[in-house]
């Protein structure tokens, strides 16, 4: 027969009769693509603005690129601008962070998703997401208290300010991101794969290795990329433990290890230091700093290309046949179980330790009066206005970033060809890896100066948007990729247009993951200090709620903590800084738990394939 099974090449086009428009699900949903492309355009717009800012800076003075890339002498007084030592520092710190965080993070994610019963896994997963909510400045403060002495003992060096300490702090910071995104990827693997594998008589280790991991790998890799992007872009926490010593480069291979326990400098710490302020806005000094910014963006892009390389090809290839020996199957299985559950203990211990320090230091936050009274002077009273300001910034950022990030994720996940998807994904991760200090400086030039907003809460919210969008987009795209093919096939077989497919299939399937992404992104944005200082916040004197947009600053918790923890000598200022840190963590924790509770409910209800 074959007369009805063959679809016309143009189908489903307008010629094909379809349900009358306007009746809910039957409508054409034309808005979908306009919305989705707005998302991807916003990613590109961010990059354009950033590059525009940096290129204008470079054009304002000559940059000796050879020296910037190959010399390690940085001495603005002598007009010597060599960035090699900083590039080396950034690379070493990120590699250390990944080497420490990825094995533990992946093992913990597998343990959470495959080993623990849901009753235990859910609260644990929430706790790990809480870790992602700890602002980077708190990681920095705790790094000074705990990790520096640890490195000092380990390497028998005074102080402990070192590349190694920075690497450890970053590892702790990016681990929650890796775990949370990996757990999402693992949870998206349909249960029937596991059932099939178990029914073949495989042990749990073999099930995970041969049935679950191959399916979840792209998502788990996305988690690592997000982590790497965060590590490359993080400034404040690294700033406090790396020692910021210029021009340190090992001269021989043997020195590499001894230099790990010595002070160093990364690209971000250089940019987050006072030098962009001292360099003015033109001339060779400023141009050299912009050159460093370009190098940093390039590194993020290179790391991303390298990280996504082959992931699309590998997904198509049939799994390699592994000849695994049957020798000691059960002991091996038990050992793996122990190792994976052990790996889970580490983030748990981190959380408990961090909360312990926060509670011990920031006891002021436990008094409700502290939450609901406005501050008095430099460090007296409560922090009501700072809380309101932070919530306002976060809510505005979420409102702008959710639709844009969701749209971008949908384009990356469904629309683009494999090649385009990789390019778009690279761009998105590049935006995510942009040091927020650069976003702040670019936003300051664009909104506060050129557009004449002055200090404005809206400028602050807009500057935070690029922090959130990539996380939302990449988690959404990862979830779309792990959608069972038969859902897509069934949708197409029913004759849905691509917009209808997105509206009725993709969105209902992916929104819990998108929500995770939004929450993780907001958690990160909540702790951002550097971009707000330039664009949106003042230390004292702003009204709790701004009345306009132009010259309408707010006060926010992270910048409040930052200012207090930098220079206040008064003991009550330190108490208030730690109290504010605990409040910030608690607020984010509250929001997260609420949203995770909702998500768990809906994810349960939306199990399509199990």
């Amino acid at each position, binding site marked *: 027969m074959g007369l009805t099974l063959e679809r016309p090449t143009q*189908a489903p086009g307008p010629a094909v009769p379809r349900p009358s428009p306007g009746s809910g699900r039957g409508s054409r949903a034309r808005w979908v*693509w306009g919305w989705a*492309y*707005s998302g991807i355009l916003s990613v590109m*717009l961010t990059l354009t603005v950033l590059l525009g800012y940096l290129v204008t800076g470079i054009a304002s003075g000559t940059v000796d690129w050879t020296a910037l890339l190959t010399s390690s002498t940085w001495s*603005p*007084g*002598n007009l010597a601008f060599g960035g090699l030592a900083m590039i080396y520092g950034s690379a070493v710190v990120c590699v250390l962070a990944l080497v420490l965080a990825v094995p533990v993070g992946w093992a913990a994610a597998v343990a959470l998703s495959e080993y623990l019963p849901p009753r235990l896994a859910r609260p644990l997963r929430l706790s790990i997401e809480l870790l992602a909510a700890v602002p980077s400045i708190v990681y920095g403060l705790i790094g*000074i208290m705990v990790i520096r002495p640890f490195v*000092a003992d380990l390497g028998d*060096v*005074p*102080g*402990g*300010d070192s590349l190694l300490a920075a690497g450890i702090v970053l590892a702790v910071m990016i681990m929650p991101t890796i775990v949370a995104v990996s757990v999402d990827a693992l949870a998206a693997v349909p249960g029937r794969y596991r059932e099939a594998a178990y029914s073949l008589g495989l042990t749990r280790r073999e099930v995970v290795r041969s049935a679950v991991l191959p399916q979840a790998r792209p998502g788990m890799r996305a988690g690592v990329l997000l982590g790497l992007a965060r590590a490359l872009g993080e400034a404040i926490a690294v700033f*406090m433990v790396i*020692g*910021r010593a210029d*021009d340190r480069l090992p001269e021989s291979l043997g020195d590499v290890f001894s230099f790990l326990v*010595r*002070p160093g400098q990364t690209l971000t710490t250089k940019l987050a*230091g*006072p030098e962009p*302020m*001292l360099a*003015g806005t033109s001339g060779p000094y400023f141009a050299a700093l912009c050159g460093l910014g370009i190098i940093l963006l390039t590194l993020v892009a290179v790391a991303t290309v390298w990280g996504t390389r082959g992931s699309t090809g590998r*997904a*198509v290839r049939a799994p390699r046949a592994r000849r695994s020996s049957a020798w000691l199957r059960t002991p091996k299985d038990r050992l793996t179980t122990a190792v994976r559950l052990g790996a889970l203990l580490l983030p748990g211990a981190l959380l408990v330790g961090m909360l312990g320090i926060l509670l011990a230091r920031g006891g002021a936050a436990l008094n409700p009066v502290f939450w609901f009274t406005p501050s*008095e*002077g*430099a*460090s007296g009273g409560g922090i009501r206005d700072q809380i309101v300001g932070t919530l306002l910034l976060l809510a505005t950022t979420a409102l702008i970033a959710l639709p844009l990030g969701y749209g971008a994720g949908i384009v990356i996940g*469904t629309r*683009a*060809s494999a090649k385009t998807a990789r390019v778009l994904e690279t761009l998105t991760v590049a935006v995510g890896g942009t040091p927020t200090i650069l976003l702040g400086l670019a936003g300051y030039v664009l909104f506060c100066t050129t*557009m004449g*907003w002055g200090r404005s809460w809206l400028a602050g919210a807009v500057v935070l948007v690029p922090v959130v969008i990539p996380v939302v987009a990449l988690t959404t795209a990862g979830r779309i990729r792990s*959608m069972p*093919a038969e859902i*897509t*096939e069934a949708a197409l077989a029913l004759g849905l*247009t*691509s917009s209808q497919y997105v509206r009725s299939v993709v969105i209902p399937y992916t929104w819990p993951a998108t929500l995770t992404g939004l929450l993780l992104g907001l958690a990160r944005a909540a702790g951002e200090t550097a971009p707000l*200082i330039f664009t949106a916040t*003042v*230390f*004292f004197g*702003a009204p709790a709620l701004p*009345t*306009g*947009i*132009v*010259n309408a600053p707010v006060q926010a918790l992270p910048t409040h903590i930052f*200012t207090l*923890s*930098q*220079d206040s*000598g*008064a003991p009550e200022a*330190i108490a208030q800084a730690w109290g504010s840190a605990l409040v910030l963590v608690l607020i984010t924790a509250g929001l997260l738990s609420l949203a995770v509770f909702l998500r768990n409910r809906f994810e349960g209800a939306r199990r399509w394939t199990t």
Partner: protein
Amino acid sequence: MSTESRSRAARLTGRRVRQGATVASASLLLSAALTGCAGSGKAGTDAIQASGSTTVAPVASDAAEALKAKGLNITVATQGGSAGGISQLGTGQINIALSSKPLSEKDQKAYPDTDFVTTQIGADAVGVIITKEVADGGVKGLTKAQVAGLFEGKITNWKEVGGPDLQVFVYDKEPGRGTREVLDKFIYGKGEPPAPPKSANYAIVGGNLETRNKLKSTRGSIAPLSTGFIDGHPELVAVPLEGVAPTLANVASGKYPMTRPLFMITNGKPKGTVKQYIDYILSPEGQKLLPQHGYLTREQMGL
């Protein structure tokens, strides 16, 4: 497998022309949304804007708090430290620059149209801080040459200056920090300081609190730091320089070499509410705020 189905989906439903139109309309939408916000802003409030040094900010905030009751609206920010405050004042973005370093000729040259008027509100003594272990071990004072040797990395063990057999660990302040400029001025006068040493025992620190934390946790460390910050921290000692200890009397009389003034800088003579604000800080009531944050009052400085 998922890739395959995705590209198939794209192939089956992709219509290039419409895609182009969608992209165009999306970009239009986005740019409209972005520029639309700009127009809706209204004129700024009449708040006095002060910004600059993190050292002065706590005092400025406390004073602003006291004046709130009188209906004065003052915002205090700390963007870019002293140098940042001065540049913002020069470009007319703020009313008052907070500064913990004297105005330099360079600043005046950079903003020729601005009539910088400085008002000293107090002072701050910068000490060369060492750990108690080193002080007890025999380091009872340092000469200018010894301080230079320590910070240039030429003296690497405390026994070279009469102390215990312990490695020196130098914490220097970031470039542009008022504290570092005071130390450089003490060691080199008007000369240009040399590049920092490439020793393993040399690191950079930022704020005063960070400096104190790191001094306390590093054996054999040395750093420049406001003496107000080591009050109540017996494990740290401000070492006498050239035989002069940073006592109140020595600082006030000018015998102690590393004192820095704290300033409020305005464009032209302070007028109206700005004058009211600065006058308050200069009043006996306002001066009481300085010791609270570890600084010296004008009276103590003999002004």
